[in-house]
């Protein structure tokens, strides 16, 4: 399968698209394509495309980028999904740009600090909510959900869905409500009051986390003080 690839080279002014053709198997991932391009560029002595990757298997969230306008992980986006043979790669747009396809996603980690995603006291493990806590702990912190969120902007107060998804495991394992006092205040201020319930975050999650379910569970615990 042959695809025409356009990669936004943004650090050079003015920004331009680097265009090349890649011939591979329909099952090849965009990440494989990028690695291949860079290896060839290295042997030619050309400049490589700057991007981040790690696991190449949908587990570390490093390779998030916009692929044909949609935030996705390059290592789990495959050529067969782009039948028209055109692939446009751009950096995520909601985070400070670093180089080519790399953005600085520190905002994701800052968001989790801002809503106190940590155990402030002893952990109470309840088998009844084990599955949902597991889902919550599966978040890749890739930033795709923030990229599609109409209310999130890096550097501003609103944390986006990462707060609710990750906050759940903390809320659900608290040993008594007192432990959640500070977290509840922070959650309301930085997440709950800013969420417009577009739920764009639910469909986009590359880890397949049931985002909507975790949001409603987190809201129940952290806004209405219910046991979840």
């Amino acid at each position, binding site marked *: 399968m042959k695809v025409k690839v356009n990669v936004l080279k943004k650090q050079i002014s003015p920004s331009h698209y680097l265009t090349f053709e890649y011939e591979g198997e329909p099952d090849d991932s965009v990440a494989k394509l990028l690695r291949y391009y860079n290896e060839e560029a290295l042997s030619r*002595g050309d400049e490589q495309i700057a991007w981040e990757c790690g696991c190449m298997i949908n587990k570390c969230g*490093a390779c998030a980028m916009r692929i044909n306008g949609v935030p996705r992980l390059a290592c789990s986006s495959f050529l067969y999904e782009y039948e028209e043979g055109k692939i446009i790669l751009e950096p995520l747009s909601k985070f400070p740009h670093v180089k080519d396809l790399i953005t600085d996603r520190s905002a994701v980690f800052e968001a989790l600090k801002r809503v106190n995603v940590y155990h402030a006291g002893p952990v109470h493990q309840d088998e009844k909510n084990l599955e949902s806590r597991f889902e919550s702990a599966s978040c890749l912190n890739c930033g795709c959900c923030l990229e599609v969120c109409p209310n999130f902007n890096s550097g501003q107060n609103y944390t986006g869905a990462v707060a609710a998804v990750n906050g759940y495991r903390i809320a659900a394992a608290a040993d008594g409500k007192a432990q959640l006092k500070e977290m509840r205040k922070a959650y309301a201020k930085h997440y709950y009051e800013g969420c417009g319930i577009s739920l764009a975050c639910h469909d986009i999650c590359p880890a397949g986390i049931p985002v909507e379910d975790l949001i409603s569970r987190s809201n129940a615990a952290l806004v209405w003080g219910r046991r979840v």
Partner: protein
Amino acid sequence: MDIISADNKIIIIGAGLAGLSAAITLAKEGVDSVLISSHPSERAQSVMAEGGINAALNTKGEGDSSEKHFEETFKAGRFIADEKAVREMTAAAPDVVKELESHGVCFNRDENGNIDLRNFGGQKYKRTAFAKSDSGKQIMTALIDEVRRLEVEGKVERLSSHDFVTLLFSDGDKQLVSSAADNADEISDRDKRRCTGALVRNRYTGETIKLIGSAVIMAVGGLHGLFENTTGSLTDTGEAAAELFRLGVTFADLEFIQYHPTTVSSGGKRMLISEAARGEGGRLFADTGKDRIYFMEEKYPELGNLMPRDVTSREIFFMRKKYPVYLDMSDLPEEIIDKKLAGLARDCAKYLKKDIKKEPVEVAPGIHYFMGGIYTGADHETEIKGLFAAGECCALYHGANRLGGNSLLGAVYGGKKAALSALRYANVKCTPYAYYEEPPVSPAGEITAVRRILSDVLGVVRNGEAMRAALQELESLSSKEADFARAFLQCALFREESRGAHFREDFPEERDEYRRRSIAKVVQGVSVDHPF
């Protein structure tokens, strides 16, 4: 260049499981740390771990014990690991797992509500605690949550997206004696340098920072980036280790490279089919075209498909010369796959387009883990005072072959142990000056040649002639990675026997006179000193 005097803080390089564990331990002891990593912890290789972590919790009524855990670990490592260190680690393992539980790790539970345990290779007892087949991710999330708390409290400073450049040294401190040197009777010239920090570079801004602290713990993961296709993360480049080697840090056991028996080519690297698949009942077979040969079960009636990885990989390697080899999970109850192997089933569906409930997967051995790494004593200190190592970059617990489930344990326990040992420097006032040596820039593209050369000859089966030719080929290269690669080959050539993961067709027997560790270090420029 910014100079950050990190006062009496301890500097940790690498924020995977070992680095996080070190930071948490230091904070508990009242010592602050700076946690440096090329990528945020959330992206470290540790999140990829699947099958689980070993601890003799003995909740299955099988009579397991820490002593048995020790014996099986030491035996699988073919008796060359640091015996004292292995004993300590296996004894501490149940507490390590309980501590992880107390941080909120979502381990699977058995019918009695205990942490569930599964079988893993080379072990006769159910001893591997797991969180479905995403154990690494679940453990990492819990430890990152804990470190986030410490960050908010100002006890840990996380500098993600920073590359290690080199070490800082100052004059030796006469009162502090490195206990690693006590074990290093092979090495005559003890190092007089005292490590007091690191030079790191911000990957996003290019800015270099001179970080001066009271000690440094290296937790930079395995040496994957020096080889072509491994199951590991591309973030573990091996660059930091190559720099340490250039600086004269001693390495050990470099010839011992673990090939995982069941991997598949995917995305330009190897994808792991976790040992958990066989732990839960998956079976290996060779397909002759007419029938299936369950070669592991036939040859090894006791442990069958769960023989240690070195043995299983070799059997598959030789079998594949005749027939393709498959891993069959289709007979496993659906409930087991859904509850215990969900991640593995998902990965196979996504990347291999295989439904493991219905069809077998063709497998081959692939590089997975490095038993070799930085040489330390049982206290995790190197021969350089104030320099420690933990996790996959540190060669200590696994000898010639690692048991599955022991490296997550080694990373958590090792990070903790290194931190506790480093405490002896915590109150030593920072030196006002620290010197370093600017590392040379490696010629572009040379790493590609290094990867090819090492991968070609350090396979499941090796031979002297090919390795000597590879050593010759390396002579034309000048990077520090090439110098480091030479050490791998010299160790492998020197060991004229077969032991654990090091199998030489020209010396197929294990030999008593080689029952010891290989030590490699740079002396006077580039040459590698006595591998033994």
